């Protein structure tokens, strides 16, 4: 279970306060959506969960399965099952996709005390999981995300997720920049991973993604706090009326 408790976060550089007492609970087996206007703190929440530098937690805590994540390095969090699908997946020139995936998979296995994956087993796994996301092995022989289209980058994020098998999946605006076909492929990839021991936090600006990844709960994030929590129908309501009621101005 993910428990975010009264989280206050400011940017280290400029000192601007972004999250102002955010609280949230996502039990295993559930998919929660976070919706909110631009600048409400959605991406900050995603980055703080993954442990990116540059954010200072001034108050509150983040617990995953009862354990605080705050003092952990990003790779330790990953070993605990945390995964962030980036809004803007990064390009790594010179590192082949397959090398990257294998290094990550083996690093996680090592931390969890499991044996490393053999080359044939790894290739079989990548082929099988890649196929579902329409990702060819040839694509993974190229440097990570270099020269990929927006859709290819997002599919490659989901492939990483499918291979690393995290238990807390945070998706940051995974729908941005996707056409309807790519959106469907990505959503199917995510849905295939839904399971009783996995929690999802799906961050999005638009309701559209939630037609494909149907959430158990929807939270409205505005001005650094959760303003309202409801069922999936809340997303439709937001689609009709916008975020104006939560920010005091039209979004």
């Amino acid at each position, binding site marked *: 279970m993910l428990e975010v408790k009264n989280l206050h976060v400011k940017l280290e550089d400029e000192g601007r306060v972004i999250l102002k007492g955010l609280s949230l609970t996502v039990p295993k087996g559930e998919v929660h959506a976070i919706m909110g206007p631009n600048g409400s703190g959605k991406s900050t929440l995603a980055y703080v969960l993954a442990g990116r530098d540059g954010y200072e937690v001034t108050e509150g805590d983040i617990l995953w399965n009862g354990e605080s994540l705050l003092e952990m390095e*990003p790779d330790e969090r990953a070993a605990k099952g945390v995964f962030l699908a980036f809004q803007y997946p990064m390009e790594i020139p010179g590192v082949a996709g397959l090398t990257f995936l294998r290094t990550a998979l083996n*690093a996680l296995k090592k931390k969890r005390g499991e044996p490393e994956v053999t080359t044939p087993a790894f290739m079989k796994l990548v082929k099988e999981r890649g196929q579902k996301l329409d990702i060819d092995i040839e694509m993974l022989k190229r440097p990570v995300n270099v020269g990929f289209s927006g859709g290819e980058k997002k599919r490659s994020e989901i492939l990483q997720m499918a291979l690393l098998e995290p238990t807390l999946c945070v998706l940051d605006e995974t729908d941005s920049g996707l056409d309807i076909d790519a959106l469907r492929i990505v959503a199917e990839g995510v849905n295939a991973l839904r399971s009783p021991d996995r929690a999802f936090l799906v961050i999005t600006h638009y309701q559209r993604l939630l037609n494909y990844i149907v959430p158990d709960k929807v939270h409205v994030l505005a001005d650094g706090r959760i303003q309202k929590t409801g069922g999936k129908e809340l997303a439709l309501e937001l689609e009709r009326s916008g975020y104006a009621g939560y920010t005091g101005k039209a979004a």
Partner: protein
Amino acid sequence: MNVAVMKTKAEQGLLEAFDAVSGKLPGGAAVMARRAEAIGRFGALGLPHRRIEEWKYTDLRSSLKQALPPAIDDRTPVTIAELIVALGPLAHLDAYRVAFVNGQHRGVLDDFGEASGLEVRALAADLTAAPEKLAPGLIDPSEYDGAITALNTAFVTDGAIVRVGDGVRLAKPLLVIFVRAGREAQAVAVRNVLSIGAGADATLIEAHVVLPGACQEAQVNSRSEVSVGKGAAVRHAKVAVDSGRTVHLSNWDIWLDAEAAYRGFQFTMGQGLARNGIRIGFGGEGGKLDLSGAYLVRGQEHVDTTLVVDHAVPGCESRELFKGVLDGQGRGVFQGKIIVRPDAQKTDGKQMSQALMLSEDAEFDSKPELEIFADDVVCGHGTTSAELDPDLLFYCKSRGIPESEARALMIESFIGEAIDKVEDASLRAALMAYTKGWLAGSTR
């Protein structure tokens, strides 16, 4: 007015060393006269210093504190098994082999099998028996006037004379090994004369390596003169890996005939001070040059690559890519000059030099120069220096890859782009293995 410049301790030491050993150096009277002339020239020039443009960032006069005694007639025992250890990752290469220990040919370590069309001799023997058969460098000094080459001519003890016949395709690379051994700090001067016949195809690899337990200090002066015949294809590499305290002064002088395709590569690691001078001249139309290098620098090490590509004839192509990783107080220097002479129309030249800085105290000096006297040419150069991207490190770490591994992955990928220029897969693998060893903290 001539101003007599005070000689440094090292300069004085070099002149005295010559007096001490000249009687024991190989070669008859004609060679001895050349040596005497060369040391005289060195005496007049002195060690190169920062007021000489080509040595602006590598002030050898101030950094060379003393002259080590020259290795003469070396007898340090080295077994094949020890040579294999010294070769490290290079031992996996399936190659013809000629070996020199402390600058002296050691025939028992050679391995040629049946290599037809390949002729390999020791320079020392030719200096004595047939100096007139040698390349211009040792006979006609007029075109070489640098102090380092003068020292090489004065002190050279041995080296490989290699001739690949016209149209010969070498089945395996030729590995020319210079291994340092023994407990004394010594100076070594070697020279290779490599000539590749018209239409031939060959891979030549020079390896400067050290036996475990050998003295950490040494001064190496290595010169290679290469002529590539018409339409020949040559891959030429130098791998210089040592313990971090050596002075490695290297010069390559390459001449390409028409339609020749030459790929050169230099790998430098664990050198206290390395100066890699490279000079390449196109002698005929349609020549192709692909020159690249990778260097790894840490502590107070210093690696300088200074090259001149001379487009004297029309229609040739040159590409250079040099990449360095700089840690600690290490320093990387790149000076790349491309000359396009008035007749050299349709020249296509591109050059890139890149440094990855792992420390705030590291320094990178890069000076690309284009001297273009023809009007119908395509030439370009670039240089970059950068640190590891913290966003990329975060991305890797968020996937479970620990910081040290993420850094290694990115450094390997940076340097790998240069190493990928090496055609021979087993040499590529050896260079990546060296890189991994360096990243893991060991120098060799």
